[in-house]
């Protein structure tokens, strides 16, 4: 048996065991005193809502294979020939109507999301640890200000940012996009809560008594324990930048710098009168290509973020 096969087998075994333990930990359904048929009825509700949830996704998948005229002319929830998927896919790499190239936008989105997300996570991890485990003059006030930052509408910041950028030549600069993406007050808040719940003060004090420097304590003791919370923050901040629309819309006028969201917004605006350019299939397939990496990321990392999302409500 190959190592990979064995690996997947042990993984399956572990998952099976986890499921059984979970079953032991749950209250058996019989104890709720349900009427006969309740489970079926509720399962039906779940199916209906799942259909509602999946309908647009299924529609996108099906219609990413169609021509522009079939997207409008044929039944939306079934395939129609010709099969245009690869043709459309190739067009994602071309500037088809002068608005710009999808592939280019996609790379921009990846760049902004990764650098913004990683930067946001680093700042949140450092800051969350600092606020959770140190007291210094003004720490309470600083933290209160950051919490107030949760309430500030992004638009309120976007407009003056635009004005400020105009002064310091950050319009149409990559940094104009990345720097704001690194400010995620929710992330800092989550990290602080996470540290308070999962890293006991005594642990840090013990390390201090052993003579470790603060930096060393952070890197060798706190950081490893913060990984699950850190992954949640990373995922949320990457997704936040991936989805961001209004900030890039305001600060970029150069199509070359657009992220996918702004590019697609532009296409959807032009698609109606783009003549022969056939933008609708691109819009559909572009949407699909944008979704897939995010779904994959969330699916891969789900054991981290599932517990983490709730942290915000634990502390209060």
């Amino acid at each position, binding site marked *: 048996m190959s190592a990979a096969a064995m690996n997947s087998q042990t993984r399956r075994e572990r998952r099976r065991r986890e499921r059984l333990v979970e079953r032991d930990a*749950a*209250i058996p359904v019989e*104890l709720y*005193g*349900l009427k006969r048929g309740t*489970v079926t009825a509720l*399962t039906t*509700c*779940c199916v209906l*809502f*799942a259909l*509602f*949830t*999946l309908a*647009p996704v299924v*529609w996108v998948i099906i*219609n990413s294979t169609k021509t522009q005229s079939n*997207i*409008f002319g044929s*039944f939306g929830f079934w395939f129609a020939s010709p099969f245009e998927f690869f043709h459309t896919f190739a067009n994602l790499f071309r500037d088809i109507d002068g608005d710009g190239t999808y592939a280019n936008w996609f790379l921009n989105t990846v760049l902004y999301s990764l650098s913004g997300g990683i930067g946001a996570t680093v*700042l949140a991890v*450092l*800051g969350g640890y600092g606020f959770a*485990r*140190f*007291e*210094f003059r003004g720490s309470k006030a600083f933290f209160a200000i950051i919490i107030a*930052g949760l*309430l500030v*509408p*992004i*638009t*309120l910041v976007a*407009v*003056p*940012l635009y*004005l*400020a950028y105009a002064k310091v030549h950050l319009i149409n600069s990559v940094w104009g996009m990345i720097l*704001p993406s690194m*400010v995620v007050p929710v992330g800092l808040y989550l990290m602080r809560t996470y540290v308070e719940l999962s890293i006991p003060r005594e642990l840090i004090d013990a390390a201090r008594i052993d003579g470790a420097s603060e930096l060393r304590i*952070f890197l060798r003791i706190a950081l490893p324990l913060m990984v699950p919370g850190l992954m949640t923050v990373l995922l949320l901040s990457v997704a936040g930048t991936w*989805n961001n*629309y209004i900030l890039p819309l*305001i600060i970029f006028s150069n199509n070359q710098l657009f992220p*996918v969201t702004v590019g697609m*917004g532009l296409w*959807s605006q032009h698609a109606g009168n783009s003549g022969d350019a056939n933008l609708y299939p691109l*819009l559909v397939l572009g*949407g699909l290509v*944008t*979704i897939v990496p995010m*779904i994959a*990321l*969330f699916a891969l990392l*789900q054991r981290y973020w*599932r517990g983490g*999302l*709730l942290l915000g*409500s*634990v502390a209060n």
Partner: protein
Amino acid sequence: MSETALRPSAPAVTPPSTPGKRRRRSAYARRQGRAGLAFVTPFMIIFTLIMIAPLGYAVYQSLYTTKLIGGTSFSGFANYSTVLQSGDFWDGVIRVIIFGGIQIPVMLAIAFFFATIFDLGVARWGPLFRAVYFIPFAVPIVVSSVMWGFLLDPAYGPFNHLMNAIGFHNFNWLSGNLMIPSIIIIAIWEWTGYNCIILYTALKSVPRDVIEAAILDDTPLWRIIVRIKLPMVRPAIIMLVFINTIGAMQLFIEPTILNNYQAGVVTNTWTPVIDIYSTAISNGQYQLGAAMAVVLAVIIVAISVASLGFRGRRREQ
């Protein structure tokens, strides 16, 4: 570091003559304070640069007016009085309040319903449904608006075919009357899964024995849910109301994109943020736009504080 530690510092003993004064912190505490400051400084710098400074700048700008002739001059609260007297702006505010007032309760009810089902395990394939419902959270709002635009398209959209098939001809999901309901449907599609997961996690943390005690007391299931589970996840619900309200007040992307499928319904004052965007960016009236943004921020903060106050009052009882 070691040098500062060696330097003779202020006397360790506080002179007894100043009893009212705060005790000086020990050298150890001060050293730690400095370390703490070092950890939070990177965030604080960028936060100041990106949030605080622009906010201050916005407030500053909102007090000035630029005229075609005469340049920029201080105009006091003139911009604010323009905003406050603008019928269009307030129509937009009321529109998003109506939108949020319907969308948030409906969505939270749906999310709580499914979260409860998943928590109790009273439907088959719970984990699968949980994952499916979460998918829309991974879809950028621009993309979901584009998708829903296709689905609801008045001429070709499949949902229109559906309405035709069941006898509603000339049905237009994106007409003036139905634009808000349609956006509510889209927002429910986008956010229910996320809210559901958070509620589910909160419900999971209700101790098992509390529920078992209720079962031994022969509590009917609906009463376990309404009288025990629901109150115990109140903090999570309050947090969600909070987040969703802030989001709803800033409605922008969905109407902007849907406007490309049905022109003419979404005016450029349709929601406050659309209004701010078109005033400040499209029309170049920065100062007026800044004033609008400040007013919107005040409204959002007021609503949030009001809901927090409500929560505090409930707690005291």
